[in-house]
């Protein structure tokens, strides 16, 4: 995967996904060890270009780079020349000219990371582009599911909530179906994309149908401004009809795993008890995120070329 741009999971082969997960297992041991420093990316430079607010993804990539020995610089929207009206092309060319090896990019506009990959030569890692894709999040979801379930093939995975605006859902769908899982999407019809018909994916308007016998339930964040734009009537009603709580989770398998990309609105899309309950892998996801991002950086900057 040397030099591969990480833009979306559609252009990953199942073998590449397996390689990332396998590498991440090694990386996780490093994170859990006392000395979190590898020499793999010593002398390499990575820029985190975050043009949209983010705490966990940015920190996760930053630490991943540092644990591998790279020099990492983070640029935020408010401190970049974008606020002075510099175009994305010029921002990218400026960063490239400083000699960086990879640009990790978060941007509001769908397709922005792929655009970047056509403008500059460093490896581009998409850390979220609008509602399009968030490949490292999907890979950490796959990693976490495999950690707890021992497999991905044949699992029933429910993804519930705001599918329409979710880059996580779009990336999960392609990652999971490639690995043989069955994906069930559910939420209010106003938050489901139309025309989303793919093999291995079922779209439900009734949340219970998606939860039934599920091995994994991935609960997406509901942004409160969606209520203001008229997509659902109130947080209270959302929580009652679509929120995931212990009672509703009984529809799923007894050992069902709960995921959430964070940050959670507790009491809205997910109950407080579930976040901290025995089914929850939510905090494990965060640690796995660092491992998966270490794997991605190592494989694209240091791995064998294919």
């Amino acid at each position, binding site marked *: 995967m040397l030099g591969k741009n990480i833009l979306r999971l*559609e252009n990953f082969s199942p073998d590449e996904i397996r390689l990332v997960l396998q590498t991440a297992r090694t990386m996780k041991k490093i994170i859990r060890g006392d000395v979190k420093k590898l020499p793999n990316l010593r002398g390499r430079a990575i820029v985190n270009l975050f043009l949209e607010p983010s705490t966990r993804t940015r920190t996760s990539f930053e630490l991943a780079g540092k644990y591998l020995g790279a020099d990492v610089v983070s640029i935020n929207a408010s401190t970049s020349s974008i606020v002075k009206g510099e*175009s*994305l*092309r010029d921002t990218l060319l400026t960063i490239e000219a400083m000699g960086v090896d990879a640009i990790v990019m978060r*941007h509001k*506009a*769908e*397709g*922005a990371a*792929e*655009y970047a*990959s*056509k403008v500059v030569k460093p490896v581009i890692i998409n850390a979220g582009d*609008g*509602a*399009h*894709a968030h490949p490292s999040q999907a890979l950490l979801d796959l990693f976490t599911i495999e950690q707890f379930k021992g497999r991905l093939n044949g699992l029933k995975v429910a993804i519930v909530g705001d599918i329409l*605006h979710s*880059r996580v859902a*779009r990336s999960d769908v392609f990652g999971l179906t490639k690995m043989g899982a069955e994906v069930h999407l559910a939420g209010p019809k106003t938050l489901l*994309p*139309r*025309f*989303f*018909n793919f093999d291995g994916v079922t779209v439900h308007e009734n949340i219970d149908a998606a939860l039934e016998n599920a091995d994994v339930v991935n609960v997406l964040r509901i942004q409160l401004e969606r209520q203001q734009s008229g997509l659902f009537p109130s947080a209270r009603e959302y929580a009652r009809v679509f929120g995931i709580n212990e009672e509703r989770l009984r529809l799923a398998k007894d050992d069902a795993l709960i995921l959430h990309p964070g940050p959670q609105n507790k009491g809205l899309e997910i109950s407080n008890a579930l976040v901290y309950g025995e089914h929850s892998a939510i905090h494990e996801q965060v640690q796995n995120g660092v491992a998966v991002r270490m794997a991605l950086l190592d494989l694209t900057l240091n791995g064998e070329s294919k």
Partner: protein
Amino acid sequence: MNNLWEIHRAEIKDSLLIRGGRVIDPANEIDEIADVLIVDGKISAVEPDIKFSAQNEYNAAGKIVVPGLIDMHVHLREPGQEAKEDFVSGSRAAVAGGYTTVATMPNTSPVVDNAALVRSMVQRAKDVGIVNIKIIGAVTKNQKGEELAELRDMIDAGAVAFSDDGHFDDNAKIFMNALDYLHGTGKVVICHEEETSLVKDGAMNEGRRSAILGIKGRPSVAEDIAVARDCLLAEYTGGRVHIAHMSSARAVEIVRDAKKRGVNVTAEVTPQHLTMTEDLVDPTNSATKINPPLRTQKDCDALIAGLLDGTIDMIVTDHSPHAAEEKDREYIYAPSGFPGLETSLGILLTDLYHRNIIPLPKLISKMTYEPAKVFRLDAGTLSIGADADVTIIDTELEWTVDAKNFYTRGSHSPFVGRKLKGRAVATIVRGDLMKLL
């Protein structure tokens, strides 16, 4: 290569004889091998083997000779947006594409919404004088959809039609007032049909492709609702409505039904909506970003059927150039539109004529006679005494679209790189021959 495309005026004094081409003049139901004689800028004769020793002759054997093409929907960006285009660059693009008459939209800076501006644009068009530029005025002040613009003053100043193109007038009462107020003037209101709330922040068709890309959609039902409303208001008021750049299959049905009931409605379609689909949307290149958006094959098929059965009256380009730096950015932030004057005929000949989808006389009629009829223009025919606006087409000439060769200031076209078969090889405006090859 550049020299080949350089437009140069042949030295003509008083007369030009176009020899031996296949003359297609839908207005006069002519489709035969004939000569066309032009004297003092007017069509003087159209018949086989004209015996006249003209100062200049053009050998059109093997070529198609048609009335100068008309495009009722272009954005030449004057006044105020000359970085995108101006009357000179736009006129050169028109000549290169075989167009002799173009009508430019008023969504400029400032908006052309009063007689003084119309008059100055009419004068500017005369001063540039390369092709015939017609001026379309705004329907409402500043195209805001709140108050009627001074429509009668603009008619007297030379406006050929009215449009708030760029967006839909949500206020049905104001739009109805415009139809009533213009009743009896013969002037047409050209309508951009996308219900505003349904397309807010949308950057492409709402469909399978937008579902994958996560880009906010502009659903076809937004167009259908708008077209239905305006057909109903045309029916109710007796006013004249012209539906701009149709893109939805359902909207074609709505117009077809309205026409059957005798409603005063006409419609246009662009080469891009006839031949391209949402599958071509590439979020790294904003060339395909247009409003209304590229839709599906089913829509393309319905638009072609509508063109063939007369539901859709004419083909326009919606030539919408932008500066390169405006288009070269994130897809959802880039402005909509691309330049179409120089590629239109080549695309239509390649994708519709050569594939036996639309016969040549029909295609020419949709680009000459029919727009002239709807907008009551003194153009679009080779009738004796008419202004000698003529386009000579080589339907077999193969060429590749290259933005480096564009005369327009726009550069981002989804047709760049296309290998095409057929194009204009000479454009004649009021007897003035501009050879292209």
